[in-house]
């Protein structure tokens, strides 16, 4: 296989990796801080794309305003979900969170499908990238669509910001304290409940953002998150659950590996990530960047 083709595959892998990274980052933040396994993450990603599409249809909003508004709306939906539903399950086994969010996934997918069919008479709709980002860029050694480069760049920036906020700032310190020892944190006069809700909202907002970014590449349809979320789960397991660095690095790495792997041997494309997961589990059950289960 020639180098050019391989490079294109690597770039495409980075694009997929950008989505894995953004989604598993959100999952990691939510799991690391709240011990919630948010199965609905894929559905909320789809909701991000759908909201962007619906804003365009209803108010003629373009890509740029939607890129800000849709994640905010999805984040707000997340806040409502956390307050009204998920908060009732704290103190129970985390599997109940998984089950609840699984139910929400079924609900959301079908709801969006019904709305799309009744409002727009379609079940899958294309979404065009903004004009500034259409066309291709010649990088010298390879020609690549501008929009996809933008997705990679933005995703890297968002991941860096999230990592920085959680690891290096006072806000991050409060969040970490709230989850590691809520009692003591409360004694310092910090409203732990509010922070938990906020973190969930932000994590879910990240999924919404990924959804808007994905809309011009994969088009908008109710089940666009359903396969992606499973791969993202595998990424999270490989990276180590709750590890922010692990989810981002593994997200991009898995994207590239799967793309290169599928160029060499096409049938393996979708299974590679799960084979990888099995191998990692054999050697390190807690994932590449995760702490052993008991150490938490």
């Amino acid at each position, binding site marked *: 296989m020639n180098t050019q083709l391989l490079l294109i595959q690597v770039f495409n892998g980075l694009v997929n990796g950008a989505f894995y990274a953004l989604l598993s980052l959100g999952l990691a933040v939510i799991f690391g801080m709240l011990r919630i396994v948010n199965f609905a993450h894929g559905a909320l990603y789809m909701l991000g794309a759908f909201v962007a599409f619906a804003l365009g249809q209803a108010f003629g909003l373009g890509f740029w305003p939607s890129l800000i508004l849709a994640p905010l709306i999805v984040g707000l939906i997340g806040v409502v979900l956390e307050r009204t539903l998920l908060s009732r399950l704290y103190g129970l086994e985390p599997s109940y969170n998984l089950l609840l969010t699984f139910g929400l996934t079924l609900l959301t997918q079908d*709801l969006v499908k019904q709305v799309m069919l009744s409002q727009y008479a379609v079940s899958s709709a294309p979404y065009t990238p903004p004009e500034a980002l259409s066309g291709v860029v010649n990088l010298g050694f390879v020609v690549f669509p501008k929009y996809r480069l933008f997705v990679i760049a933005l995703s890297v920036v968002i991941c860096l910001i999230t990592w920085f906020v959680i690891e290096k700032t006072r806000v991050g310190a409060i969040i970490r304290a709230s989850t590691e020892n809520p009692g003591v944190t409360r004694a310092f006069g910090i409203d732990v409940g509010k922070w938990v809700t906020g973190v969930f909202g932000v994590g879910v907002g990240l999924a919404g953002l990924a959804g808007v970014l994905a809309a011009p590449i994969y088009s908008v349809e109710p089940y666009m998150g359903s396969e992606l979320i499973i791969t993202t789960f*595998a990424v999270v397991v490989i990276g180590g659950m709750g590890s922010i660095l692990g989810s981002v690095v593994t997200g991009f790495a898995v994207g590239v590996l799967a793309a290169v792997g599928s160029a060499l041997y096409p049938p393996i494309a979708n*299974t590679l990530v*799960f084979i990888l997961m099995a191998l990692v589990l054999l050697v390190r*059950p807690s994932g590449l960047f995760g702490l052993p289960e008991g150490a938490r």
Partner: protein
Amino acid sequence: MTVLPRTAAKTDRERTTRAAWLIGLGIVLLILPKLIYPVLALDILAWGLFAVAFDLLFGFSGLLSFGHAAFWGSSAYVTAYLLGHGQSVPVAILGGVLSALALAVPVAFLSVRSSGIYFSMITLAFAQMVSFLALQWTDLTGGENGLQGFARPSFLGLDFSDSTTRYYVCLALFTIGFYVAYRTVRSPFGQAQQAVRDNEPRSQSIGFDPARFKFTAFLISATLAGLAGAMYAFGHGVVSLEVVNWRTSGEVVMMTLLGGTTTLFGPVIGAGLVLLLRDVLTTANLPVGIVTGVVFVLVVLFFRRGVVGTVQYWMRRR
């Protein structure tokens, strides 16, 4: 001490209750194809056993497998494949069950080392591997088209083209499967399994090896799920990619929860309720996903004991 006699009376009552459930369920299952159309009744048996198999792991070992569709689905495919290649019905079903067992060995080995939510996600990922395999291994699975129109040659004078006959064959298989699950739960092994579930460090300190119990429980559960999957393929005469989809893994969880975990009868009743509900919704042309999603959410939030669990709770409180 008044405690002892009361406990004795209680277990007596529990035994009577169990017998009542058993007889009730038996009667309903015997006349079921007269009440609803036989293929739906057959579905209830297959999914019911699938849910019992799942509950064996979830309810009695505390392991939430989110990938049980892998065993149900691979068995369904193998059964259909064998039937399509001229094998008799018993051979095909046995082949399906054995394939589920064979698949379960490596999956169980890798997943029981993790617990809690890690276990769920790992089983889910393995199931997804099976699902992609099913999509790509078109020679065996028919890919997007699935397998259909395979033969179900008569055996011992039984004509399997008649859905009522198929129902009663499946009822016999169901009874065997249910009995295996029942014996497992009530055996010393089952008691030890529950001890491991309730307090792993303590069970370890009295000499149990938790990983071994989980491994064995996983194999039994997967094999029974395989039997259920074989029943499904045999009963329907059609197998599609849906059998290995992650939604299938989720649906069996829902049936079990709705009926009541750790009850054995519960999962069967849960399966029946979900399938009847879906049947009503589809006939009435209502959105199935929305209603089942809402039911699922409500069950997890407010009704975790499930139908049978709630009834048992009331009876115990009396």
